[in-house]
Each structure stands twice: as structure tokens, then as C-alpha cells.
């Protein structure tokens, strides 16, 4: 089976003091640590598990600049046979339609049976990459999958719905499946593993052949603002015990929860 997985290299914004850049439409990214998108870690693990189970080869794709190769190396370290990175300066600050066009371009004429990607990315969170790629390739697509099994030329998947509900879907291959967190337990990738993977080649594609002309206007970010400060917020101070006690008291006071 020919399997592909798309991963993205994203900033870790936990505890970061984010600021809107001078253009008013993007965030300042300087100084933030980057890592593989959380959802993509699950997609990668699932791809490796499927490869181990049914056999075949696995190609990892990434749309990003050279610094983003770290995430591709993780893919190579856990069992991807090939890694492909596509980048063009025109893609910096691209909207999801443009990114999907680039993803389509990276896949090229290789017919993959199964393409996995994370259900969304932790930076912009559009959740559009997978479905748009499927659309561009003219193949099936299922999103928010938290359970899957390949059976011959089909995949049985469970889609996550609200309130703990799941929807079981049987889908014919080829297909793009976008993966929800929790579907598996992504393995640890050791530094030694990543170092070994540095010796493996990464195919680098430029954006030639990727037509963005009709995509740019489909979604335009007008402006970006920090959420306004709410009224009446109370910062709880003190030791963890005191904070927890105060929390409990406040919840009781507010009623409805306890």
C-alpha cells in the first residue's frame, strides 16, 4: 500500500506573550519554539502503524521552509521511507486554499492509496487541509477520525461527533483521512533517532507547477486582534492549595456546577 502523511511545523504558543505584527494581520513569531503539530503526531503514528500492519511504503510531506525540516526528520526517524518538502516564498502567510494547492502539487502524479493528515493545526486551526486536498485530488475524504482500520481496498473509520458520539464510516480507497488526537499513542522519537535521520535525504520541491493564482482571493485575513480584556476577571493568588480552595468556593458561589 502506498501511504502518505502530511505534517506541519508549528510554533508552541503555550505561555507565549503573543503580539500582532506591524501589518495588523499576522503574529510575531520570533523567539517561539517550533515543533510538529500535535494532530500530525497522531497522523504520523497511525501511518506507521498501518504500514507495519499491512505493509507498503510511507512518504512524509511537509509544506514549509528549511527550518521546518525538523518535523520531517521525526517522520524519517519513526519509519517514513521518503520525505518531501515543498516551499515557495509565495506561500508565507498563505491561506488554507493556497496551502492545499501546494499539498496537491507536492503529491504530483504519485497515486497514494491512503493519505493521512492531522485534523487541524494548532496555529491557525482551520482544519481544511485534508478535505481540500481530497477535493483537489478528486478522492474520498473523512475528517476528525479517531479510530481506523484498513481492510483490503477499504478503510473502516470512526468520526468523532459532539458529546462523545461517533459515526462509523466505510470509505473506499484512495482517500484522505484527517486524524483526531487520541486515536493512538504517538511514540517517543529519541534524539539519536533524529540524528540518524539527518543522514537520510529530503526531497525538496519548489513551488513551480503550483498555481496559486485562483486561490489567494478565497480567504483573506483582514485584521487580527487580541481578545478584549474581560471585565471582572479575578486572579487567584497564593499557594496551589489556597488557589484550589478559592476556586472551589467560587464555583459553589456561582452555583450550577457543584
Amino acid at each position: 500500500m502506498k501511504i502518505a502523511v502530511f505534517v506541519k511545523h508549528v510554533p508552541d504558543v503555550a505561555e507565549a506573550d503573543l503580539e500582532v505584527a506591524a501589518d495588523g494581520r499576522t503574529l510575531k513569531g520570533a523567539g517561539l519554539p517550533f515543533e510538529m503539530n500535535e494532530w500530525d503526531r497522531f497522523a504520523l503514528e497511525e501511518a506507521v502503524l498501518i504500514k507495519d500492519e499491512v505493509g507498503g511504503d510511507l512518504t512524509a510531506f511537509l509544506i514549509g521552509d528549511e527550518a521546518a525540516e525538523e518535523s520531517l526528520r521525526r517522520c524519517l526517524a519513526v519509519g517514513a521511507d521518503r520525505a518531501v518538502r515543498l516551499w515557495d516564498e509565495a506561500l508565507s502567510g498563505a491561506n488554507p486554499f493556497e496551502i492545499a494547492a501546494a499539498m496537491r502539487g507536492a503529491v504530483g502524479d504519485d497515486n497514494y492509496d491512503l493519505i493521512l493528515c492531522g485534523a487541524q493545526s494548532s496555529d491557525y486551526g482551520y482544519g481544511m487541509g485534508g478535505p481540500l486536498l481530497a477535493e483537489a485530488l478528486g478522492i474520498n475524504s473523512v475528517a476528525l477520525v479517531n479510530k481506523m482500520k484498513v481492510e483490503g481496498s477499504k478503510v473502516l473509520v470512526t468520526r468523532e461527533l459532539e458529546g462523545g458520539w461517533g459515526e462509523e464510516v466505510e470509505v473506499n480507497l484512495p482517500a484522505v483521512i484527517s486524524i483526531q488526537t487520541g486515536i493512538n499513542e504517538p511514540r517517543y522519537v529519541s534524539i539519536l533517532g533524529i540524528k540518524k535521520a539527518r543522514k537520510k535525504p529530503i526531497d525538496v520541491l519548489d513551488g513551480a507547477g503550483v498555481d496559486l493564482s485562483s486561490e489567494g482571493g478565497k480567504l483573506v485575513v483582514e485584521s487580527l486582534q487580541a481578545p478584549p480584556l474581560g471585565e471582572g476577571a479575578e486572579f487567584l493568588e497564593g499557594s496551589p492549595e489556597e488557589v484550589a480552595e478559592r476556586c472551589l468556593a467560587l464555583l459553589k458561589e456561582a452555583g450550577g456546577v457543584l
Partner: protein
Amino acid sequence: MPKLSDIEGVTLAERFELAACLQCGRCTGGCPMSIRSPLNSRKFLYESLIREDGEALLEREEVWDCTSCRTCSSRCPRELDPAMVMRAVRTVKIEGGRIPKTLMDAMESSLKHGNPWGRSRMKRTAWAEGITVNSIEEDAESERLWFVGCTPAYDPRAMGMAKALARIFEVAGVDYTTLGSEEVCCGSEMLRAGEEGLFEELSEVNKENFAELEFAEVVATSPHCMNTFIADYGLDIPVTHYTQLLAALAAEGKLPFGGESEEVKVAFHDPCYLGKQNSIYDAPRNVLKAVPGVELVEFARSRERSLCCEGGGGRMWIEGMGEGERNAQIRVRDAIEMGVDVIATACPFCLLTLEDAVKTTGSEGKIRIFDIAEIVVNSIDGSERSE
């Protein structure tokens, strides 16, 4: 899945010369975990001998219970090193990627943020806000580096150690500087958890910092940082623990202790990395003895026989398989029976595991846990700063 026999092309038994093992069991007899966990180093070594390549050991999850206290290795009559066998098995498990999730998070955080606690690099100096702390980021130059450490920098309870030390250095006029937010994890626990590659990455950064700034001496808050600087970094400058510096200051009369004070009965809990692994037993006791009002008493198991708190070897981030009472809980109960008011220690991990044990044994109000630096500051400033 990688294989144990892949380590440097030799089997575990060959690499650690296990054929010399007498199967006397002294290692297991001294192991602080063997009472409450399936971890049994004698049996473990036996298994790695009788199985051709010992691969079956990879299935044994109890290898994560080892606290890397090295009691086993220090007691072996044949000078074998069971603690290193545990680490070697962990390393192979790590290469296979199937390790406890909490440990995985700590390792990834260490690489990404330079600390195992999942906190931002930017917040590394948050503990120092509003107090006097010398830092290279504020151009404070010194030949003496105070290596604060991740846990004292980030953990709300262990921060008490960092704050207390900064205050003592201030009043005693100690010449020092810190690396501020340039400091990264020493890697000790990652190495002992078996992640050798990660240790190398982290230690390279620190070694470069030390060399570039031409420090002549390093003083560490944590015995774990100190130990790895001594045992694993190969530095050519002296590395000491803060209790050694405080003991010297006390001997020179440079610690301005408060005069009047109530008598407090204090038992000192020897951290494994300070005591057993570096034979520093007297310095912490000398500091305590110098504090007015402190009556120092000894646990039945103290110094070389001290009971490990279970915080080492990466165990701060591994739940483990152990059942029954934790060693730190035993410690707290013993101290209460001895009529002790305070358990003093000198390690952030011991501090946290003992604090935890006070809560899990329901002993709040019966006993208190302080770091030695906090006890010194309490006397100097006449207030309790532990909360």
C-alpha cells in the same frame, strides 16, 4: 524495535561483565525499590545472563522503577554496576519509543524549552521577580556561577530554595552570577532515564556557556545538577553544592543568623545524589548545627544508609509500578514517631516528594518540610518563607 544486543555490538552480559555476578543479592538487598516494586536487580542480571541476548528484559516495565540511587552498585562485592544495566535497558526502550507518556513529555520539553516541566524558556527567571538576583543578563559578572536548576526555577514549592539562596547570597555578600533565561536543564535526569542523545544536546549548551563566560567555579542548588556536572560533564573547574558554600560561610561567621529563636527539632534527610553518590554528609549538617535553635537529630537510616525518596533517575516524571507505602511516606512517619518538628533536606526532588508525602499521609500540622536554605533564611530574616 531496537535490540538490547545492539548496544555497541555486544550483549548486555558482555558489556557489563555480568558473568562475574555471584548472585549474592546484596544489590537487591540494598535497593530502596525492591520492597515495593517487582524491581529486583539480582534477578534482572540473572535474566540477562541466561537469555541469549536478554531481549526479554525489554518487556520488563519495572526497569522504570529504578531511581538510579546507585545503592546496588555501591554494595556489589564484585564491583559490578547494576544501576548502569538498568540505564542501558532504558536506553534501548527509549530508542523503541514506547516509554511512559509523562516521561516523554518531560524529555520533549527539555529539548524544546530547556526544562522538563513543560514551561516556557521566557519564564525561567519569573521566580526572581522583585528580589535581588545577579544575572549575566543584567551584566553581573563573576567567576562563580550559581546554577539555579529547572525545578527551583519553575516549581512553585521548590522556588523557595532559589529565593532563599538569593537572599542568603545577598546578605552574606557572596560574589556570584546566574545564567538567567540562558540556563538550560543540566540533563542529569534525562541521562539517567536513558536518553543519552538528549543529555548530549543539553550538556553541550551548558558546557559552551560555562566555557564562553570563563567561570572558575560552579555552585548548584540541586545535587542532581551538581552530580552530573561532576560525573558526566568532564568539566575542569570545581563544582560544589550550595550546602558546602553555606557551611563555609557559617564557619567564617558570615551568615547573620537571628539571635532569639524557639528550639526546633530537625532531622536531616540525606539526598542520594549529595550523600551516597558524592559523600557530602557533613556540610549540610554543619549548616543546620550553626542555625540558632536547631536541634539536629538523625534518622535511624541516615548518611550512607539513607532511604532514597524515589525522586531520582527520572522518577519525578514516571509513576512506576511500586505498590504500598512510598519511601517518602515512610520517612515522614518515621520523623513524626521520632518527635521531629521539621525534616530538612537539600534537594528540590527530595523537597517535593517529602512535601507530597506529608499530604498523602495526612500529616499536615504534625511536621514540616524545609530546605536547608529556607531554614537559614528563616533564621536570618526571622520569618517563615516556605509557602
